[in-house]
């Protein structure tokens, strides 16, 4: 991928960017209480006494959330810390009932790791993971129901979060986009977070600074909170970096502050200046013992891990002969990769991939269907490709058959059989058709023989037409060449 450089008449600049991603943990109950995490409940329905910060209530750590975090850590190729502990992050807000968030501070459960991102042209780049810790989500404040009152929904209060912090390794907006895609893919493969940024189950804070191109200094950064789509993250990085460049080039200095990204304008505006930054007064949570994991436990979790997108991609390239690009696209989503693998089993995988990424997804898009709703099953897609490979039908017929499959969901073999679409590979039968065609057009035969080579295609077309498309095009070509001398 080409380097991303901000070039102005005054100079060249590069971006230094890191991300902090909050991922809601998939678990039946909240991280420190037994309340349900199910989405879509009535307001304040899933709230235990612990979540509501009632007097005398104590947190207890949800084992499943720890399991999910360890799984995620392994998926991020990260160090799993056998000792971690919990801290309180103290601040007042109406949707934070305890007045503190129980999080991990000095000793997170997951240490350094890396994520390989896939860039244009089949290139990859390693993005460093600084750490990942687990914590509780806050509730939701709703300010737009009443002009004077705010409303609080605590259903989300106490839902488990994994906060993933990257190293400042991003040098281009596209890299951040590719990272978020890859992270989402890994989390979904693992089943530890559903990764829906629009629903807020994955939320991204973006830290951006710039520096003169080629230097290794780190300048003041600004943080943009809760940027809620991959597109917006890339936009926010680009625009914020430009803002910094403009400031530096006009002789100013960038102030360390938290900024808000406005998706409507694409611009950022100041939310909180450094002098108003909270003093969170972190201290070890006395209500929870440190979390100590054994090697056996970590190995057990490791053994439960599914094949992840990178490994799957690798396998599809080396064993199935896919191009890296096709493999990346197919492996981004586990369901897609599974469908493909089922379709390709026992058939020519490369050809299945072409069909899968071309006609098959074209059909789904046209019909506005999800993969799981596809009328064409993986097995039938494979069978169709096999029919072509075995010369039972030709490519053109295959497209007709596929169109029928898309309507009826039928087995392609059955369709070919019923509609009599089997291609003719019997040379004597094809010869007979060719003879008819040549006999019917003596002028063209003469013209061809006289040097009008361009007429060859016309003959092929006539033969195919006469055979109702069932003649094997290869044999037709070969026989025609022989007959026309």
């Amino acid at each position: 991928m080409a380097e991303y450089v901000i070039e102005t008449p005054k100079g060249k600049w590069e971006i230094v960017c890191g991300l902090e991603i909050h991922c809601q943990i998939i678990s039946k109950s909240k991280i420190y209480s037994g309340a349900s995490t199910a989405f879509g409940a009535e307001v304040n329905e899933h709230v235990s006494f612990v979540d509501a910060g009632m007097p005398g209530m104590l947190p207890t750590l949800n084992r499943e959330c720890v399991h999910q975090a360890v799984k995620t850590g392994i998926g991020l190729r990260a160090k799993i810390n056998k000792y971690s502990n919990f801290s309180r992050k103290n601040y007042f807000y109406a949707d934070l009932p305890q007045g503190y968030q129980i999080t991990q501070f000095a000793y997170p459960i997951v240490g350094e790791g890396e994520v390989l991102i896939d860039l244009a042209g089949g290139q990859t780049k390693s993005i460093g993971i600084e750490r990942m810790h687990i914590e509780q989500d806050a509730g939701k404040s709703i300010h737009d129901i009443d002009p004077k009152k705010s409303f609080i929904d605590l259903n989300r209060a106490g839902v488990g979060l994994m906060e993933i912090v990257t190293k400042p390794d991003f040098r281009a907006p596209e890299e951040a986009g590719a990272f978020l895609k890859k992270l989402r893919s890994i989390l979904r493969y693992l089943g530890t977070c559903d990764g829906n940024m629009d629903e807020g189950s994955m939320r991204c804070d973006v830290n951006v600074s710039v520096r003169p191109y080629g230097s290794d200094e780190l300048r003041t950064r600004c943080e943009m909170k809760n940027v809620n789509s991959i597109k917006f993250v890339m936009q926010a990085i680009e625009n914020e970096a430009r803002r910094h460049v403009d400031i530096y080039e006009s002789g100013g200095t960038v102030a360390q502050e938290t900024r808000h990204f406005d998706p409507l304008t694409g611009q950022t505006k100041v939310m909180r200046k450094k002098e108003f930054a909270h003093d969170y007064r972190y201290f070890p949570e006395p209500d929870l013992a440190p979390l100590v994991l054994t090697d056996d436990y970590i190995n057990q979790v490791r053994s439960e891990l599914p094949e992840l997108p990178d490994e799957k991609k690798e396998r599809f390239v080396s064993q199935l002969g896919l191009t890296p690009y096709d493999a990346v696209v197919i492996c981004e989503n586990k369901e897609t990769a599974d469908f493909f693998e089922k379709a390709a089993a026992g058939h020519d995988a490369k050809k299945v991939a072409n069909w899968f990424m071309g006609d098959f997804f074209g059909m789904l898009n046209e019909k506005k269907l999800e993969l799981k709703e596809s009328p064409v099953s993986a097995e039938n897609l494979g069978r169709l490709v096999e029919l072509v490979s075995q010369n039972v039908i030709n490519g053109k017929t295959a497209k007709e058959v596929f169109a029928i499959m898309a309507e009826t969901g039928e087995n392609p073999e059955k369709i070919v059989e019923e509609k009599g679409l089997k291609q003719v590979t019997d040379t004597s039968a094809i010869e007979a058709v060719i003879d008819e065609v040549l006999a019917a057009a003596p002028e063209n035969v003469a013209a061809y023989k006289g040097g009008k080579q361009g007429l060859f295609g016309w003959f092929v077309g006539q033969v195919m037409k006469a055979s109702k498309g069932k003649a094997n095009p290869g044999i037709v070509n070969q026989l025609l060449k022989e007959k026309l001398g």
Partner: protein
Amino acid sequence: MSDLTRLTVGEAKKGLDKKAFSAEELTRAYLKKMEENRRLNAFVEEVPEKALAQARAADEKYARGEAGALEGIPLGIKDLFCTKGIKTTACSHILDGFVPPYESTVTEKLLEAGAVFLGKLNMDEFAMGGSNETSYYGPAINPWKAQGSNADLVPGGSSGGSAAAVAAEMCAAATGTDTGGSIRQPAAFCGVTGLKPTYGRCSRYGIVAFASSLDQAGPIAKDVSDCALLLNAMAGYDPKDSTSSKRAVPDFTAVLEQSVKGLKIGVPAEYRPEGLNPEAVSCWDKGIEMLRASGAEIVPISLPHTKYALAVYYIIAPAEASSNLARYDGIRYGLRVPGNSLDELYINTRTEGFGPEVRRRIMIGTYVLSAGYYDAYYLKAQKVRRLIRNDFIEAFKKCDVILTPTAPTDAFPLGDKSMSENPINMWLNDVFTVSVNLAGLPALSLPAGLSSRGLPLGLQLIGRAFDEETVLKTAYALEKEINFERK
């Protein structure tokens, strides 16, 4: 049958078992005492109707032969324990009208054992104080008076209502909590017996939190045996409290009669500072002699970091409190004083809702956790806390149980100027008790005699972690020798 209230829990239980009197009669006797002694302001919430209903249910259980270990025993509950359907305020204005929809684990266990709850007992606001004077409902008053004086004395704190109520026989026994001496010091001031168990022995679930790493529930009772009986019911692992211990709970009454012969009693040099009240010293010396006479071996020990204990305690406890009390914000329950913005609502509610001592500790706690001060105060205090704990671990290599005074003085008058003008003087009361909480150890205070003013003085026994049994049996032996006459 007003002398029913004279009976200890153990004696009352025997009477109930033999059907010498009914649980209802017993409860009525205590309710009468409760009414007669309202002047002591020991109860902040009385629930006589509920108590009588419980007592009648207990009588039915006796009739069916299904009586629990504390069936029909009337107890007072410190207002720090959340009690389902019974107002619980931690004696703070900020929890005005709060009626918990849940029961604390300790009170739940007592109810399961058949106990009858008479009401909620006065205490220092959020358990912060040593005289019960920080209560929003005014101080409880010590039933004892100094010879030749009619001045009201403090019952100690923070479990002042519990100690006063037990001393005045307004309940058969009471629950207390102890963060820096809050069970032991009031027990000493009121001439009753109080036990702070090992940290983790009793669940903290449903107890309004003051300082989470120090708080522990325990009984205040008429004698050592009753403390053992109550602890049997209160103790045990609770999955709802991650800091509660999974260790098996023994029958604490089983060891009481065991001899202390050959037991090694540690006597720490550091607890005899120059200028210590000579009456406390002589009371202590008498205790030492009694144990020696009973065949125990007296071992001089050293707890060299004792002198830092108060300073460490008054950093760690307020730090945790400043965070624990953040939830009292006027949003969901209790007092709300409106404001024009969220911040104003917080400020108005918390300014009006918390008393001066609580505000002071929130300020101190916030300060010591602040960026730039954390290392110098909180972190340093945690390190010294470890050294204090190590002192005890070393000491217990040489002895089995440690004997000290409970408090440096006997009960002082209400509104004592030296303390109200300088809170440090009040905090000095905790000098012998806070180390135990910092180290998480079990300790018991029992009445050991009277001062020259005719007021009770307490002795404290400190045990190894989870060795309440040695503490109890030593206390039981001492109790027999001392033969203290309750009020």
